[in-house]
Structures are given as structure tokens and as C-alpha cells.
């Protein structure tokens, strides 16, 4: 009986080794779609409050540093470009280059977060945060800043998660677990990073260019 069980156990193990790239990618895409709906809820809120308070949202936007927002956009886009290219590099067998490109993306992610931290602390220093006295009696601007903190904050958490996933990909590449033949982990990590990028593409005009 124990032999039978052991055999079955091995079979189960072999089964886990079974690789279905299409399936893995499908799973990742489904996860990304569900992420889209997560942010979708916030976009619905933003749209409704902006429709209610168009002027206040414009006034809120005027407190934003658009240059930092645009710069951060370019940083993220470059990161996306690098991680996309790293897949091509890996597929063509240039592991070192691929690792370098993933490393670049991680650095852009870190740079993005640093800019974000500067920006948030600037706003808080100026007195724009939920419940601050500058926003008392201005419900529209209050909502604008609340949504700003919630949406960019949640996006920031996704950037951090993306950095973690890309770092894992980098380690797996260094250990030879993610290779020219088995690159689906890198591909899925890249997909996640691109989603983070896309959300930012929409956050830019909603907050930084809202004036």
C-alpha cells in the first residue's frame, strides 16, 4: 500500500512540474483583469465626484506638481520598455542583458517611489491631507485629495509588489530557474509591471493634469 501511495506521490510531484505556459499566462491575465476592476471601482468614484465638483477638482489639481507627475510617467514607461525588452533578450539567449534590463526596471520602480515619497511629504508639509485645516469647508478639494492619496497610494503598493515580483524573477534568472526555454515567470512578472504602468497612465491626467 505504501508503495502505491509513494508512486502516486511521485506522480503528483511530476504533475506539479507539468508546464502549461498558455495556462499560466491566462491565469495572470485573469488576475490583471481583476486588478482592473479593483481600480475600476476607484475610477467610478473619481468620475462621480468630479462630475459633482468640477471646479474643486480643478482647484485641487492646481496644487499638484505636474512636472513631477510627468517625470514619473516617463520613468515608469522606460521601466516598462526595459522589462519588455528583457523578455526578447532572454528568448534570444542573452541572459546577462535580460538580467540587466530587469535590474533597470527595478531601479525605475525605486526611483518612482522616491519621487512619490517626495511628492507626498511635500503635500503633507503644505497642509494638504485628509482632515487638514486647509481643506476644512472645501468638500470638493477634500475629496480630490482623499482620492489622490487613496489612488496613488494603492498604485504605490502595486509598484512595491511589482518590484518584489521582478526581484524574484531576477533571482530565478540568476539561479537558472528562469531560462530561454522557461521564461513564463518573467513574462508574467512583466505583465504585472505593465499593468502598474497602465494605471499610472490614467492617474496622470486625473490628478496631475486636472488643473
Amino acid at each position, binding site marked *: 500500500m505504501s508503495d502505491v501511495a509513494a508512486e502516486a506521490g511521485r506522480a503528483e510531484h511530476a*504533475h506539479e512540474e507539468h508546464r502549461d505556459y498558455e495556462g499560466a499566462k491566462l491565469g495572470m491575465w485573469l488576475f490583471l483583469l481583476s486588478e482592473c476592476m*479593483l481600480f475600476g471601482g476607484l475610477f467610478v468614484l473619481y468620475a462621480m465626484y468630479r462630475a459633482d465638483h468640477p471646479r474643486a477638482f480643478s482647484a485641487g489639481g492646481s496644487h499638484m506638481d505636474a512636472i513631477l507627475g510627468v517625470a514619473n510617467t516617463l520613468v515608469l514607461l522606460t521601466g516598462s520598455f526595459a522589462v519588455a525588452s528583457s523578455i526578447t533578450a532572454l528568448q534570444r539567449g542573452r541572459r546577462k542583458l535580460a538580467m540587466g534590463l530587469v535590474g533597470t526596471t527595478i531601479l525605475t520602480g525605486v526611483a518612482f517611489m522616491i519621487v512619490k515619497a517626495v511628492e507626498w511629504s511635500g503635500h503633507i508639509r503644505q497642509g494638504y491631507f485628509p482632515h487638514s485645516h486647509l481643506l476644512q469647508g472645501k468638500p470638493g478639494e477634500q475629496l480630490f485629495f482623499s482620492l489622490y492619496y487613496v489612488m496613488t497610494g494603492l498604485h504605490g503598493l502595486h509598484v512595491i509588489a511589482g518590484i518584489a515580483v521582478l526581484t524574484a524573477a531576477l533571482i530565478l534568472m540568476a539561479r537558472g530557474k528562469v531560462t530561454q526555454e522557461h521564461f513564463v515567470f518573467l513574462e508574467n512578472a512583466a505583465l504585472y509591471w505593465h499593468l502598474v504602468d497602465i494605471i499610472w497612465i490614467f492617474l496622470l491626467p486625473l490628478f496631475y493634469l486636472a488643473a
Partner: protein
Amino acid sequence: MTTSEAPPRAGAASYLEDHGRFSGIFGWIFSTDHKRIGILYLVSTLFFFFVGMSLGFLMRLQMLSPHGELFKNADYYNALFTLHGVIMIFLFIIPAVPGSLGNFFMPIMIGAKDVAFPRLNLLSWWLYVTGAVIALASLFGSGLPDTGWTFYAPYSLRTHADIPMAVFGVFVLGFSSILTGINFITTMHRMRAPGMGWFKMPLFPWALYATSWVQVLATPVLGITMLLIFVERIFHVGIFNPAMGGDPLLYQHLFWMYSHPAVYIMILPAMGLISEMIPTFAHRTIFGYGAIVWSSMGIALLGSLVWAHHMFTSGLSDAAATVFSLLTFLVAVPSAIKVFNWTATLYKGSIALEPPMLYALSFIFLFSVGGLTGLILGALALNVMLHDTYFVVAHFHYVIFGGAAFAFFGALHYWLPKMFGRMYNRSAAYIGWALLFTGFNLLYFTMFVLGVMGMPRRYAFYLPRFQTPQVIATVGSWIMIAGILVVFTNLIVSVFKGEKAGDNPWGGVTLEWQIPSPPPTENFLEPPTIPEKAYDFEGAFAS
């Protein structure tokens, strides 16, 4: 799980014996086998069902007298209905059918060895347990949770209860649900056995497919709503707080964008179970296979567009109320189609009134009552009268308990022989069903009457004129609970001590009946024979 005396079959041990890498309890809670995970879900969701049922029992006791039979302080009653709702919805009925029966049978029914992501599957269960623990930990916070399961703002922003903990628990539970959905969709796209075309798939997997889409696309909206309440409570951002310019109705919009489709997460898999049981016990193919498939997808899609019918009296715009009422009547059409198809499946069948079939037929009746009273609530003029009364409570319980849970209980009788290789006591099953069915109708039909009389829900105390029906409903709850106890004592005893069941006790034709009971770890010892058509009874009996 004492199946050790079963003669070992050639090839592989049953999943009950093969504990994988770990032994004892760890062989279960760390197993990535979809069948073992299914059993984990079965045990844990049923545990919470019994917790929720006990809370419901106490609520009914309180309602025995107008001034409260149990508590003179409404706080305790408010905690009871909040916990009853949260537990029954998030910890029982949403995960129960997909998590237990879906995990166990969907891969087998499409001829797969396992789900697409077995480790993710285990993670889903662990997240479920984590979410449950977090949600229940809120009980020991600053006060008993008292918001109702809906966490409506701004009340949830002001109450002393530990709301951040509770909503974080719900968020984690939602995450578990999303991962199950992703896993199931991928499994059905990638893991069907060769020859198992989409339109040969049995209807339970089809129902799970539709459900999974709702889980993947609607649950994140609940996630963000709960996160916003969490952020609101901790940082006071004011997004839903009217005192700071926020709009509490937008909370309701976001909440129901998930929570209405969630009703379809609860009922669609149950409809799939009915579509399995009726052909098996009528020994004939399902009537209108295509119609049932498309109505499942139609319900999933239309069901996502009717959320604001929970808000007709909230100050919704007249235009929105009109559109949502219209859409609500349209979503009734695919459900009606299913009911007609099931009834037509009985025509010229050869019907065995086994206990699972009895549950399936009572599902049709109870679900029809629930669905038709839904039409009454969907009509704008009547909704104004009946919203937030016992009528809504009764309607909901007819759909979710009379519908989803009856189908679940029926399917437990249907598949128990397959899952554990043992048969239950039939007489006990009939007695349990009869008590359950009688008590259920006495309890909830009386609530329709109370609703029309104007009894509002969530009242710890009530006006004396409502007392007689309240007492009748409470008596009904006692009969119903007696029935549930009989049903589950019978099922649990038979898991350990029941007579041996054959591989195919009912003469079913879906793939799970081709393999041994209980199934071996690998599911299929040889590649399964895929029938020409789904539910091909003539073909099966000809050979």
C-alpha cells in the same frame, strides 16, 4: 476516513488513503490535491454553516416576544444579525459550492487530473481560513460588530465596533474567492480531456465557469469598497462621509456592484448541481442543454447590471431607478428558462425519487417562490412598500437557502457515495428532508406575510401586532433545525459507517461515475471515455 479494508485497486490508492508528502492532519491542510482541498472546504464551510445557524436560532428566539425574549439590549441582537449575515454569506454560501463540490468534481467532470494551479488552490483555502479568523477576531475588538453584513456608510464609520478588522477579513475572503475563480477558468480552458469539447461539458462545470467570471470581475469591487471603509476608519479620508462631502449612496453603489452579482455566485453553481441531479434521476438527457448553458452566461452578465435595485428608496435618480427596474425584470428571463428546462427534463424520463432528487425538485419549487417574489420586489411601486421589511428577508432566504443551500444539501446526498464510497441511510434522509422542507416554509413563508404587514427588518423589538406570525416563524425554525440535524447526523455517520456504495449507484453518465468510489489520487487510471454528447443516456444504455 476508514477505507483501509477496501480492496486495493490496481494503479493508485484512493485520495483518502494517499496523504501525499505529509501525514495526519498535515496530509490534508498541506495537500494540493483538488479532492482533498474540496473536503477541506466542505468541512470548514459546514462548520461555519452550523455557527451561522445557531446565531439564526438565537435571533428567532429573541423574536418570540415583542420586547425581546432573550435580550433587553438591542446590541446583542444587532451583533447576532450582523454575524449571521457575514458568516452565512462570506464564510458559507459563497465558498461552499465552488470550494467544496466545485473543487472536488469540476476537474473530474471535464476529465482533468487536477485544477490548473494546485498550489494556488491550496492558497485559496488558506486565505479563506485567514480571512475567517481575521473577520471573527473583530468580535474581540472595541465592541460587538453591529452594522449588518452590508457595512453601510456612514453608520459603519461611526459605530464603536472593530470595523477595520471585520472589513479587512472580508477583503481577504474576497481575495480567496478571486483566486478560486481564476483557477477554475484556467482549468476549464486548458485542462479539458481530449475530446471534451466546450459543448460536451456537463452543466455543473458550465455553471462554475459563469460563476468564476463573476468572482473574478465583481469581487475586486467589493475589495476596494472594503479597503475604502478600512482607510476611512483609520485616516478619516471622508470619501463616504457626508460630513466631509462624501456620498454615502456611492458606497451603496460600489457595495451592490459586488454584492448583487454575489447572489449569482451563490445561486449559479447551485443551478449547475440541479442540472446534474435531474438528468441522473430521470435517466434521460437534459432538455435544452444549450439554453441552460447560455442562460448561465446570461445570468452572469445581466446579473452584474442590476445592482441598484437594492437602492430604490435611497434617493436614487428616477431615471436610474427605471432602468434598474427594467434590467431586473430582464434578468428574471434566463432564470425562468432554466426552471422550464428542468421541468421539461422530467417529461418521459424514468424518475427515481431518491433523496437527492427530492432536494432538486424542492429546489425548483423554492427557487421559483424566491424568484417570483423577486419580481414583486423589482416592481418599483411595490418595492417602496416592501423594501427593508421581512419580505426582503424571506425572498432572500428562499433564493439562497431554499435555492443554493437545498441544492448543496441535495448534491451532498448525490455525491457522498462518490466522495467517500459509502451510502447514507435512505429513511433518515427522507425524514430529514421532510422536516427541513416543512420547517423552512413555515419559517420563511410567514416572513412574507410579516413583510406585507409592514414589519421592518433588523428590529430587536417589534410592535405587538406582529407577534403571532413571529411566533409561527420561530416554531418553523425549530422544525427546520431539527431537520438539518437529522440530515447531517445521517451524512456524517454514513461517511464513517455507511454501507459500501458502488462506483455508480445512480446510473449517472458524467465522467465522475466512470471512476472508482472514492476516486484515486490521479482521478483517471485510464483515459476517460468521453460520451458523444453531454448526458447521453441512450448511448450509455445502448452500450
